[in-house]
């Protein structure tokens, strides 16, 4: 497939497929909706990986003037397709169960698929447009496409979570729009052309000619604005609610790939700002937000009572770690940050799937009420226990390797203070997660729960767990080259 289709055709197909699928799954019968949904996701995964492979071997791909994919975009495109595929497959069984137990109406899965494909499509658009204005439009569209998914179970709590998600993220993005506007103004001043003034490539190339004060001002608005969407503290307050109330496959997508997409938009501005005013300004802003996010997650993880909120706060921690790593900079830290995003997306998706199975069976998200899951759901229990181990960074795990790289870079580049603080957050959270999950997995299960689970779960949960663990032992050369190029694509010293 990679040789037949030209690269720009691949890129266009990737963008059009989800938008085409959405109305189809909405209109056809439930049985066919399921089939089209799975088929389209599988096709999307093939297109996404083909595009990533192409970019990694032949360099950046562009199409119709305003689409541009370099290694960093390609890496995240691949991740969106992969997590979107896994969560989409998981959603089929998950929604069937909800419908059969009357939590949702028989029509619900079709509406779910409609918004799910639109959501994937908007995320992919964020990653491949070169125009910062259109990137903003696509980012706001991700909020809109996912809001009804977050509020999918029309309970009081779900409606509350969706309302908070929409309002807080839209306010954040309005601030980001002001940042985009300042950048546009600076671009017009320096470059003279309206076309180039919103292209991140042109702006990065001409960064030294941009007014440094405007760049700094724009960057502050961008970090606060897009940082809201990325889940950076103190603007993360929508995140635990949305992640805990959304249907589990949506939680996995929100956590594993939506947050990185939002972080990606900040990175494009970071590269411009570094080029214009030097590394210290924006790097220190990123380190401060990153550290603060990791630290804020600590007490909420230790004292958590809800299993899905536990995973949500862990996402805040991890996005904080990656943000700080990018602030630290340098080849090692950036490579590690890219690897960390991959490892986190896989392990967090796996954890949400396993937690979703357990929550479904026990009928509660309250940690205190879930005991002895090993005897009730053996596969999910092993998965959630193993998943927490690799997520928290116990070797062998991609996250162990990446955290080691990030901490090493911190000490090497004169951020010893940052390294020590990050290490203590990571260590405390490790203990906290392990404490919660071991109480959940072991002990005496309540009587009367049906036991056993579908062997298909072994594949769905086993594959990502194995992948994250293996990535901790060896990063396969094609992926390694991809990650190195992604690190370099940031154009950072």
């Amino acid at each position, binding site marked *: 497939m990679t040789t037949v289709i030209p690269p720009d055709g691949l890129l266009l197909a990737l963008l059009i497929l989800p938008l085409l699928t959405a109305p189809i799954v909405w209109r056809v019968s439930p049985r066919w909706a399921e089939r089209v949904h799975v088929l389209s996701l599988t096709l999307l995964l093939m297109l996404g990986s083909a595009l990533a492979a192409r970019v990694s071997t032949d360099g950046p791909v562009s199409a119709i003037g305003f689409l541009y994919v370099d290694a960093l975009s390609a890496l995240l495109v691949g991740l969106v397709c992969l997590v979107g595929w896994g969560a989409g497959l998981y959603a089929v069984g998950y929604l069937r169960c909800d419908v059969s137990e009357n939590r949702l109406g028989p029509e619900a899965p079709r509406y779910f698929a409609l918004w799910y494909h639109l959501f994937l499509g908007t995320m992919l658009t964020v990653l491949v447009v070169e125009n910062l204005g*259109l990137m*903003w439009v696509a980012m706001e569209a991700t909020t809109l496409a996912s809001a009804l998914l977050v509020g999918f179970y*029309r309970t009081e709590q779900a409606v509350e979570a969706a*309302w908070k998600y929409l*309002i807080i993220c839209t306010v954040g993005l309005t601030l980001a*729009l002001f940042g985009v*506007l300042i950048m546009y103004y600076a671009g017009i001043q320096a470059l*003279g052309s309206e076309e180039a003034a919103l292209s991140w490539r042109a702006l990065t190339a001409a960064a030294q000619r941009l007014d440094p004060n405007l760049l700094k001002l724009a960057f502050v608005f961008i970090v606060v604005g897009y940082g809201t969407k990325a889940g950076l503290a103190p603007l993360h307050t929508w995140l635990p609610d949305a992640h805990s109330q959304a249907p589990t496959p949506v939680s996995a997508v929100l956590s594993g790939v939506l947050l990185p997409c939002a972080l990606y938009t900040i990175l494009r501005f970071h590269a411009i700002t570094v080029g214009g005013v030097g590394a210290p300004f924006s790097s220190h802003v990123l380190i401060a937000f990153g550290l603060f996010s990791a630290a804020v997650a600590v007490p909420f993880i230790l004292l*958590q009572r809800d299993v899905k909120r536990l995973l949500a706060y862990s996402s805040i921690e991890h996005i904080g770690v990656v943000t700080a790593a990018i602030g630290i900079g340098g080849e090692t830290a950036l490579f590690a940050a890219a690897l960390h995003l991959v490892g986190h997306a896989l392990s967090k998706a796996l954890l949400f799937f396993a937690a979703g199975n357990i929550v479904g069976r026990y009928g509660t998200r309250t940690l205190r009420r879930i005991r002895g899951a090993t005897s009730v759901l053996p596969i999910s229990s092993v998965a959630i226990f193993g998943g927490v181990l690799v997520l928290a960074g116990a070797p062998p795990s991609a996250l162990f390797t990446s955290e080691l790289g990030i901490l090493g870079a911190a000490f090497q580049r004169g951020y010893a203070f940052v390294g020590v603080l990050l290490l203590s957050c990571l260590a405390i959270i490790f203990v906290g997660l392990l404490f919660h999950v071991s109480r959940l997995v072991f002990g005496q299960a309540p009587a009367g729960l049906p036991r056993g689970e579908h062997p298909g779960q072994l594949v769905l949960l086993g594959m990502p767990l194995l992948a994250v663990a293996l990535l901790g032992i060896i990063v396969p050369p094609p992926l390694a080259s991809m990650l190195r190029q992604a690190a370099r694509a940031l154009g950072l010293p």
Partner: protein
Amino acid sequence: MIHAPGSPSVPMDVLSIMLLATSLLLVAVRRLDLGIWLLVSQALILAGIAVDIALITGAGHAWLAVGLTVAVKAVALPTVLFRVLRSVRVRREVELVLPTKAALLLAVGAIVLSYHATGQLPFPGAVASRHALPVAVAVMLLGLGIMIGRRKALSQVAGLIVMENGVYLAALVTTMGLPLAVELGIAFDLLIGVLLLGIFAYRINETFDTINTDRLRTLRG
């Protein structure tokens, strides 16, 4: 292209101050239907500013921005908001986080701050008005204040629109708006966003039997 700085445009000054005045009124009013009419007037004022810019620069794209502003902000959004208002049957914002006088005092503080801050901004010679940019920043702040200070779901949506109006004014006066494709996208997002917020305001009303967002307190920690 940045229009060469000429003599300050009087209509733009006047219209900017009117936008600020309507925002202050929005901070003070309690009747939700009056609030929506104030949003309509803000949209028309913004359209007037866009007309002024279109006349000064003769740029064809500015006329499209005028049409877009009227269609989306003066017609479509208020229609949605009135429909929601009818279906949830709420007339007045009763409980405020702050008493109106204190809120107005804070608003005046925000305006002073905006004039002070924009005086120090590095925006040399782009604005053909002494008031437009500080007003834009002040309107953003007032919109944010309305969102924080009000409890009815609809008032929060109004605050969001006011905030967006501030950003739009800033875009008009600094760069004569964003490129058309981007502005179309933003208008589309705004419309869908308000539609969704309307749907959720309706659902809050259904599930909680009130549209007070302070009842949304079950999710903590």
